């Protein structure tokens, strides 16, 4: 313990040197802005920054990338809360609750909660990385594709909490999303599925087109045709400056702790990452909440849980990367490349052979999450000013940004067409009360579920019992079953109650 504290102290000394500190701030700023712009993801930002690090020393280069990473996972929440446009799929659950809070005139509160929850989640996960990395890495190695499949099922099971008006509506939406996720060339066998000889369908539907279309374009169309003033204009009267609700976080402390814990654990599993952790955390939060019926209407607990899990996953992902040398996501894969370029070899010996660099990275992560409170506040303030822009201007530029965001995915106009088509679908779904979140979940989690399921079957001779004979998988699947059955049981009990 004393050795870790000494190493961490030395790490802080390095990270606080002016140049290194500035790199953290710059990285955070780039990450937050890139994360907030739809179509430009945190991954894009890390890739764009990578070449600039070649000329830097090891420490500033890595701190710059750490800053982009930490800021990027948070940035998408700002536009999600303010405009219903999540910058990244991982920010989707935050958007469900945050945007509703904004529509109720509580945008400042929602932004403040998001900033504080992100910083808390990221800070705790960085400390976890400092003190518990090696034993946690050993635990993470016990997960196979069987357990990963169960975790994804747990995320999908939370669909039972997402259909506010109709469970069948939520299921239709979920299965439609799962179906969209199967379109394109299948990864294991290379077989085209549902492409019908349409060239762009052969490469599949990028879930970002679905995300931008359903949320942003659908919302714009809904606002244009809605009678009365546009919600954005209404909200502008109350939404100006985000506030930091330090005291307001106390009643939400358990949501914060649960979200962070889920983020660290799920983020630490290679292949799962921030997106899965945010969905799992949100679903779990609804199950344990005393007011589950308020989820989807602007529930602070749901926002705090998902947001803290997103940044909580950063420490978990770094554990996997630093101790095992296995990147768990595309973002950490790029970061691993940067580590190798700068002479750092992630793996079991890293914490002893290159302790100075490792603990500087960890100190940088801790600092980044503290600085993020100030930078997140400034960024939220700047974006919140856009709420004062008249709806006519705002809606027009949202459509243009969606165009560019969709085109930027693959430099292909087909993605733009798809985005706009999904926009019309989003409008129709809003108008006919078909829940959008389950469809998004299906598109994002479906391909993961299929890959983990098929790989598990190949590895276990098509023996389905493997999902319940492996203890961790069995527990997760049991929790998933409870998640689906519990609301039905509660409704049944309410119906039987006298009066």
């Amino acid at each position: 313990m004393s050795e870790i504290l000494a190493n961490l102290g030395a790490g802080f000394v390095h990270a606080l040197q002016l140049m290194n500190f500035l790199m953290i701030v710059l990285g955070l700023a780039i990450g937050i802005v890139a994360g907030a712009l739809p179509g430009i993801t945190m991954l894009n930002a890390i890739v764009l920054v990578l070449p600039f690090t070649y000329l830097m020393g090891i420490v500033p280069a890595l701190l710059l990338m750490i800053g982009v990473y930490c800021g990027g996972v948070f940035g998408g929440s700002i536009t999600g809360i303010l405009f219903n446009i999540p910058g990244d799929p991982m920010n989707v659950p935050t958007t469900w609750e945050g945007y509703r809070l904004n529509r109720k005139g509580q945008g400042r509160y929602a932004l403040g909660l998001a900033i504080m929850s992100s910083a808390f989640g990221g800070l705790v996960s960085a400390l976890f990385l400092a003190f518990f990395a090696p034993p946690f890495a050993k635990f993470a190695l016990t997960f196979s594709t069987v357990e990963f499949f169960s975790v994804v099922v747990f995320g999908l099971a939370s669909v039972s909490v997402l259909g506010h008006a109709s469970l069948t509506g939520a299921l239709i939406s979920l299965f439609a999303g799962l179906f969209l996720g199967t379109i394109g060339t299948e990864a294991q066998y290379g077989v085209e599925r549902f492409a019908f000889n349409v060239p762009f369908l052969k490469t599949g539907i990028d879930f970002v087109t679905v995300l931008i279309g359903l949320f942003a374009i659908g919302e714009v169309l809904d606002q244009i045709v809605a009678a009365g003033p546009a919600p954005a204009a209404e909200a502008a009267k109350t939404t100006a400056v985000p506030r930091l609700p330090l005291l307001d976080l106390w009643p939400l402390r358990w949501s914060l702790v649960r979200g962070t814990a889920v983020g660290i654990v799920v983020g630490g599993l290679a292949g799962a990452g921030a997106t899965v952790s945010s969905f799992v955390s949100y679903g779990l939060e609804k199950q344990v909440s005393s007011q589950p019926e308020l989820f989807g209407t602007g529930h602070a607990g749901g926002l705090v849980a998902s947001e803290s899990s997103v940044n909580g996953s950063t420490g978990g992902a770094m554990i996997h990367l630093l101790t095992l040398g296995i990147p768990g996501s595309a973002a950490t894969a790029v970061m691993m490349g940067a580590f190798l370029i700068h002479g750092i070899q992630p793996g079991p010996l890293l914490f002893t052979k290159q302790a100075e660099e490792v603990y500087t990275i960890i100190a940088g992560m801790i600092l980044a999450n503290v600085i993020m409170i100030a930078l997140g506040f400034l960024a939220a303030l700047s974006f919140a000013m856009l709420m004062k822009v008249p709806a006519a201007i705002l809606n027009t530029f949202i459509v243009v940004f969606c165009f560019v965001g969709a085109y930027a995915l693959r430099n292909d106009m087909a993605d733009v067409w798809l985005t706009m088509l999904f926009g019309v679908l989003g409008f129709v779904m809003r108008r006919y009360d078909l829940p959008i979140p389950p469809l998004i979940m299906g598109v994002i989690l479906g391909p993961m579920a299929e890959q983990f399921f098929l790989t598990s079957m190949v590895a276990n001779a098509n023996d389905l019992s493997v999902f319940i004979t492996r203890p961790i998988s069995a527990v997760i699947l049991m929790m998933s079953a409870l998640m689906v059955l519990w609301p039905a049981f509660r409704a049944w009990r309410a119906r039987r109650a006298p009066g």
Partner: protein
Amino acid sequence: MGPARRVAAPLAGVLLSLALLLSTRGLNQVVHGPQLGPGFWPRLVLIGLAAACLAKLVSVLRHDRGGRSREAPSGEARDGVAGISRAKLAAAIALIFLYVLVSESAGFALTTAGFIAAFMWLCGARSPLVIAANTLVGTVGLLYLFVKAVYLPLPKGDGPFEAVTLALYRLLHIF
């Protein structure tokens, strides 16, 4: 919404799912031995989709017959497109699709300028000065951000439009 239209949507969902299910027949031809193959997962999903649509259909029919179902069919909680300006909706959708359609041949810069002006007017902006300022500043700002800073090869258009776009880029020192 009338009963026929309420039934039509879930019924179409069931039929579409079944049709897609039939189209998965050839997917497992590549599989040798006891493997689930690439057709397994889509079939599972489509069966689930068909079952969910069927459940919705039953729910709608039961509701129409006696209101015994506890679950309100979709479309009742919010009355679809009733009470909204259908002409405005159609114009907005048409304008968005026209924007995408034309931008490939006329280039992003010129089309975006036209789109910003037209869409702002559709959304209720009437001041020519505001529309012109947003069109000009917005288009130039977007070009600097995405073409100059992010190196995004946005569509330049074909023939004379490409020449105009390139001239604009040179004028703005983007190229």
